[in-house]
């Protein structure tokens, strides 16, 4: 019995402390270092924050270069397929242009009407969204736990935490982490994402909650609210971060929202440099 206990302790100690060959460091020393780094990072020491920001910028760029082969292959396939479907696509685009022409006229009318109504209401223009930054998506690694992307613009371009991120005017997420040359965008599909939205003709208020799946869910709706298919969902702007009326997606009968923008297909996004806002954490 005592021999067996000795064996256990020898193997245990050896596994923790053994060095030699490729093992330049013992596992114990590395575990202690990892715990030390973890707590320094979690409790947000300024020096660690700055170091992390610098490491992030470097790693994201290296990651972007390292991922180029994987990005090139699907594009090659798409290019060939796109070439073959050129005629069909052309016809579809013609139809879309015709639709847009008619919509443009409607838009002009609605814009004028909106301006007049604002004058009547003497509404305060809370958010000035003239300043935007176009950013390229560096890394969109698909983690099972976190749904986020890295963009190539950071505090150098005036980006702050909490700023909304859109693509083609459709909301895709918000900035959650900034470095000097890069930022992390938390997508609407992430489990940590919560956004106040309004929907339907009654402007019902709800919270759009990421569920980690493709379609986020609507929560905190009025009691006995019945979900209908294809109701447009917009950002309500109540938190004074997102611009009111930014389109997000359409509802399903299950109470989920089909997003207008596929979060897995982002290449360029727009960060809206909202003013009159402090950093949102």
């Amino acid at each position: 019995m005592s021999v067996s206990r000795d064996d256990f302790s020898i193997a245990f100690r050896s596994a923790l402390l053994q060095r030699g060959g490729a093992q330049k460091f013992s596992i114990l020393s590395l575990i202690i270092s990892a715990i030390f780094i973890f707590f320094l990072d979690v409790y947000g020491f300024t020096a660690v924050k700055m170091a992390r920001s610098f490491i992030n910028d470097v790693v994201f760029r290296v990651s972007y270069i390292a991922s180029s082969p994987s990005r090139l292959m699907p594009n090659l396939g798409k290019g060939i397929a796109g070439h073959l479907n050129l005629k069909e696509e052309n016809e579809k685009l013609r139809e879309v242009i015709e639709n847009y022409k008619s919509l443009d006229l409607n838009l002009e009318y609605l814009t004028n009407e909106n301006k007049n109504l604002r004058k009547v209401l003497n509404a305060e223009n809370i958010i000035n969204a003239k300043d935007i930054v176009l950013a390229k998506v560096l890394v969109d690694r698909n983690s099972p736990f976190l749904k986020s992307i890295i963009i190539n613009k950071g505090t150098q371009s005036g980006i702050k935490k909490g700023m909304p991120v859109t693509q083609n005017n459709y909301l895709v997420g918000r900035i959650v982490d900034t470095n000097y040359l890069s930022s992390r965008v938390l997508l609407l599909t992430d489990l940590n994402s919560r956004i106040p939205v309004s929907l339907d003709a009654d402007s019902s208020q709800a919270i759009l909650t990421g569920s980690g799946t493709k379609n986020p869910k609507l929560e905190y709706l009025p009691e006995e609210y019945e979900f209908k298919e294809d109701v447009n969902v917009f950002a309500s702007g109540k938190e004074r971060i997102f611009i009111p009326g930014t389109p997000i997606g359409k509802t399903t009968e299950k109470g989920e929202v089909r997003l207008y923008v596929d979060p897995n297909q982002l290449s360029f996004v727009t960060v809206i440099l909202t003013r009159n806002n402090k950093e949102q954490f």
Partner: protein
Amino acid sequence: MARLNLLNKFLNSGPLLLLYYLSISEIDTNLEKTFDIFTFNLPIIIIYFWILKRPSVMGTGHIFVAGLINDVVMGFPLGISSLSYLVVCFVSNYVRNKSVNTTIASDWFTFFIALIFANLLFFSLLNNFSDIVISYSKISYNTFFTLFLFPIFWLLFSLYQSNFIGGQDA
């Protein structure tokens, strides 16, 4: 001769290069786009297998750095992936010290213990010391598929080892 040595060195570094590449690139093992619940943790399989079979091809220092890089890319608190990788390393080292001959079944069973320890540490630290919310069903799927796919990678890595690297370390 020099060219052959260089090739041997490159083949020996293969698993380590794969680990670094998985940590830093967009290439990942989460095929959620095709199958909603299918995610698995390949770095843990790589670390466990190579520390068990040929520790000379995978230094613990490299594993530590790969974990840090993974944290930066994924947006986790720094050091958390390193810790979970090192726990796997520790269990693998322990099994190597205690056993003479291992089979795929024994490796699979001990890998399960390593995986449970590593994931338990990872998610309890994330839950208690970070604001990041994680889905427990995703954790379960991830753990299940990692465990389920271990034998396949065991065979692939064994083939790689016998063809390009050679026998077990002393």
